Every structure is written in C-alpha cells, then in structure tokens.
C-alpha cells in the first residue's frame, strides 16, 4: 500500500513538474497563433524528455551519479565549463521567469502589481528550499499543480468541434499570414519547453539525494512514462483552449493572465481559481527546481559537497550558489523585464544547448562499467539516437531562426 502511494505520488508529481511557465506560455501562445498545427512539436518534445528523463533517472539510480557529474567526466573540463556556462545561463533565465510567474499568479488574485510580490516570492522560494523536506516539497507542489486538470475539463465544457481540432493537429500546416521560419521557430519553442535541461539536472540529482537504487527503477519508469504524458496532455489542453477561444478573436498571448481566459470563460470563477492555483504551483515548483539546479550544476562541476539533504554547514558553497541565484534573479526581475519574453528566450535558447546535456547521458547509459546489466537496450538506443539527431538539428537552426524571425515577432 505504501509502495502504491509512493508510485501514485511520483506520477502526480511528474504531472505537476512537467508544467512550468515555459509550457504554459508556449502552449497558449502557439495555440492562439497557429491553432493545433504545432501539436506535433509538443508531442515530439514529450517523447524526447520521456526517453532522456528515464535514462538519467536510471543512470543516477545505478551509478549513483547525477547528470552534470557525468557531463564533466565525459566531455572534459573545458567542454563541461562551456556547458556549465550555457546551462547555468539558461537555467537562470528560467528561474527569473518562474519567480516572476509566481508573483504574477499572486497579482491575478490581488490586483497588486507583481513587482511588489517579487521580493516575497523570492524569499518564499528560498525558505522552502532551506526548511521544507524534499518529499514534502515535491508532493505539495506536484499535487497542487494537478489543479491544472481543470484545463482539460474546460476544453470539454466548451464543446468544441472535435473533428476540426483533430484535423488541425493531424494535418500540420503553416497558417496564412505566417512564414515557415516563424512556424518552425515556435515549433522549437515548444520542443525546448518540453525538453528543458533543468528537468534532467533536477530529476537525476534528486534521485541521488533520495538514494535511489536498482530497486527504484520500476518506480522511475512509472513516474516518467505516466507522469510526463499526463503533463503533456495538460499542455495540449491549454493549446486547444487557446485555439478555440483566443485564435478566432485574434488574441495573442503576451501576458500570463491571458492564458487563463479560456478556462474562465468555460467554467467561471471555479475554473479561474483552479487555473491560478495551478499556475502558482507549476511556477513555484519549477522555481524550486531551477534554484536547486543552479546549485547542483555548479557544485557538481567543481566537485563540491552538494545536496539539499546535506546540512548547510557541510555544503555551504552549494547553498550559497542557490541563495545567490535566487537573489540575482530577484534583482533582475525587479528591473521590470517582461517575464513572458524572458520565458520565450529561455525555452528557445535551451533548445540550442540541448546536445551538451543529453549526449553525455546517452554515452554513460551505454557504458557497461557503470550500468552493468542496466545499459540501454537496442530499441532504447535507436529512439535515443533519433532524438539526439533531432536535438542536434534543433541546436544548429535555433539561433539563425531566432535572428531571421526576430525572435518570433
């Protein structure tokens, strides 16, 4: 019974953990601009994160080593330093966006400007990391994030033309008035939002912190293969809502609050309340993950003692990096930089840096010295290699597309 509860909580946490401000903004903005015609990019991204999150969890459970530790070993100190710079920068952009996202969720229920909420939200993020247990942290925000199931209910309540939605998703095409470059730029945004590197940094480091062993591999698989697809289902629901309500009206999503409009139209105050709770939980959960990931990556690269479960006195530099990351994110947030724009850049730039994170995982997952009988099987390798090719292509074309489309303008 206890095991079943653990698995259920893990799945629910993965659902909540999949959604963050990047997924919310990207899915909603794409739905409002391109309808369902980019659903394939979201599904492609989910497939990728399924393969690599499972692999990084397995590597961490079997070898006891988190992703960034392996990055340094496999790529060498120089390449790993470049990787650290890129990953830390992108993770940091995401952290700024998530902390601002929490503040915006609070603004939506209080009508107090989000800039005034920012110091409090940053403090809360740090206090939760400092004081709250790992399991409590994961389960509370994962479960709260489940409030976003209201998005799927809202789609059903709006009684859309299902065949039209399905046709839009299954017959992808560039909508009139949009160029191919912009279409593929947003496809990359969706792909990058689904495969954000911090997810595997957090996932693998968390697995090491929670002392996963081979016995936890079954739970790892269930969490990943049930939780992430359910999370993707919520992203698709958000895209469908934007397609049904926002696209016909010509509304483009450039504020987080606009993403809540369709569910409010469908379900009224209850729908709005649940959506805001879901946004709060999703952004808060992701802020915790990105803050910790900042500490994980730096500490694992330099070989410092690290871990949320390690006493701060024993992992002082790790905790200092986490605190500094939150403090600097707060300061940048307070400059009134547009959080939605920061989100868009972070997910697109993360797509450009994906190979640096995922290649080492694939190499180690094939190393018998580390993995023993838990090395990748042939089918897993074929799928992972396919994704690696996709990731490389995406990484090469991202920056040129960003320049050509003026960041999707």
């Amino acid at each position, binding site marked *: 019974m206890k095991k079943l509860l653990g698995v259920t909580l893990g799945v629910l946490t993965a659902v909540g953990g999949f959604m963050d401000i990047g997924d919310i903004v990207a899915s909603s903005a794409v739905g409002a601009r391109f309808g369902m015609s980019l659903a394939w990019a979201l599904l492609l991204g989910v497939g990728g994160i399924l393969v690599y999150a499972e692999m990084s969890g397995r590597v961490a459970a079997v070898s006891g080593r988190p992703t960034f530790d392996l990055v340094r070993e496999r790529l060498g100190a120089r390449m790993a330093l470049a990787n650290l710079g890129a990953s830390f920068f992108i993770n940091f952009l995401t952290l700024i966006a998530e902390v601002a996202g929490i503040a915006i969720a609070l*603004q*939506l229920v209080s*009508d107090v400007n989000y800039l005034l909420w920012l110091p409090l939200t940053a403090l809360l993020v740090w206090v939760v990391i400092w004081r709250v247990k790992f399991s409590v942290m994961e389960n509370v925000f994962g479960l709260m994030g489940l409030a976003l199931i209201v998005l799927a209910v809202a789609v059903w309540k709006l009684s859309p033309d299902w065949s039209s939605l399905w046709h839009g998703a299954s017959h992808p095409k560039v909508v009139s008035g949009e160029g191919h470059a912009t279409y593929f730029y947003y496809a990359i945004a969706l792909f990058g939002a689904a495969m954000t590197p911090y997810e595997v940094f957090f996932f693998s480091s968390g697995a090491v912190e929670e002392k996963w062993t081979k016995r936890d591999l079954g739970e790892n698989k269930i969490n990943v293969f049930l939780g992430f697809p359910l999370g993707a289902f919520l992203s698709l629901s958000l895209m469908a809502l934007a397609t049904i309500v926002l696209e016909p009206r010509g*509304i483009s999503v450039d*504020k987080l609050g606009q993403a809540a*409009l369709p569910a409010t*139209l469908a379900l009224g105050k209850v729908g709005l309340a649940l959506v805001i709770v879901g946004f709060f939980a999703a952004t808060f959960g992701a802020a915790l993950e990105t803050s910790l990931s900042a500490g994980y990556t730096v500490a694992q690269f330099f070989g410092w003692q690290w871990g949320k479960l390690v006493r701060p006195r024993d992992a002082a530099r790790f905790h200092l990096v986490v605190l500094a990351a939150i403090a600097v994110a707060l300061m940048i947030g307070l400059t009134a930089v547009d959080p939605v724009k920061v989100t868009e850049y972070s997910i697109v730039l993360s797509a450009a840096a994906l190979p640096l994170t995922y290649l080492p995982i694939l190499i180690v997952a094939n190393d018998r010295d580390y993995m023993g009988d838990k090395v990748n099987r042939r089918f897993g390798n074929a799928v992972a290699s396919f994704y690696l090719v996709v990731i490389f292509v995406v990484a090469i074309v991202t920056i040129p597309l*960003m320049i050509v489309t003026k960041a999707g303008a």
Partner: protein
Amino acid sequence: MLSWVRENRLGQFAVAALVITLAACTQIVGPARTYQDYERKAGSTAKSVLSAVQTSRLTLRLGRQDKSFAPYLSVMASESEDTGAGATATFSGIQPPDDRAEALGTRLEKTLQEASSALTDVRVRARRTQLGTPDPKLERRLAKVTRQLDAFVKEHG
C-alpha cells in the same frame, strides 16, 4: 577574465554567441524606409491593438456574466490598456516615408486613438468594479474598433 577570453577560443566563441543571441533578441523598431515597410509595421501594430481590444471585450463579457473575480478583471483590463498604449506609442514614433504612407498612418492612428480611449474606459470600470453592470455603449464602441482593426489587418497585415 578578459585575458582568458582573448587567449581562449572557447571563450571567444561563447562571447560571440552571447552577443549574437542578445542582438537577435533585441527588437528595436527601426525607421520605415519604404511604403511596404511602413505598411508592414502598421499591420503589425493593428494586430497588437486588435489583440488588446479583444482581450478587453472578453474581460467585459466575463464581468457582465459574473464569471470572474474583480482583481483578475482589473489586471486583464490594465494590461490590455498598457499593450494598446505601448503599440500605439511605438507606431507614432515611426516616420512615414512618403505621402501614401502618411495617409495610411493617419487612418490607422485615428482608429488607434479610439481603441485607446475605449480600453481606458474598460480599465476604469474594472477598477471601480462596475463590470457587472452592462454598458452597451462601451461594448458597441469596442465592437466598432474591432471591426475597423480587423479590416485593417486583413488589408495591410
């Protein structure tokens, strides 16, 4: 740090990548040198303001049907007003390159002013929590501006 960048190829690559990326992210509104360029900018402005007006109309509808909380409606109305005002101010700063462009700009700016005024009225009503009471006149103004902007986008967007 600077000497490390100077001596290290990886460092140079990282700095170049950062500069290119930041340049790509910057969306400075440049001058319009041809009519086509000006028309494209006008279409893009009309699209942004149309989005703000439609968001505002949806906000009004949610308030009238008592489907939302006052703070949320107030935030949505304020943000729509800010978006509309921002797009209008940016467009006003673009010099029309010829007479034809000037005529186009004058036509759009008239609609943009009507839109801005209607968006402000929605924000004021939202702040006073008056959205529960129908205001047919304001709704008609918003509908009219929507039609005008929609037609402009179809013609020039």
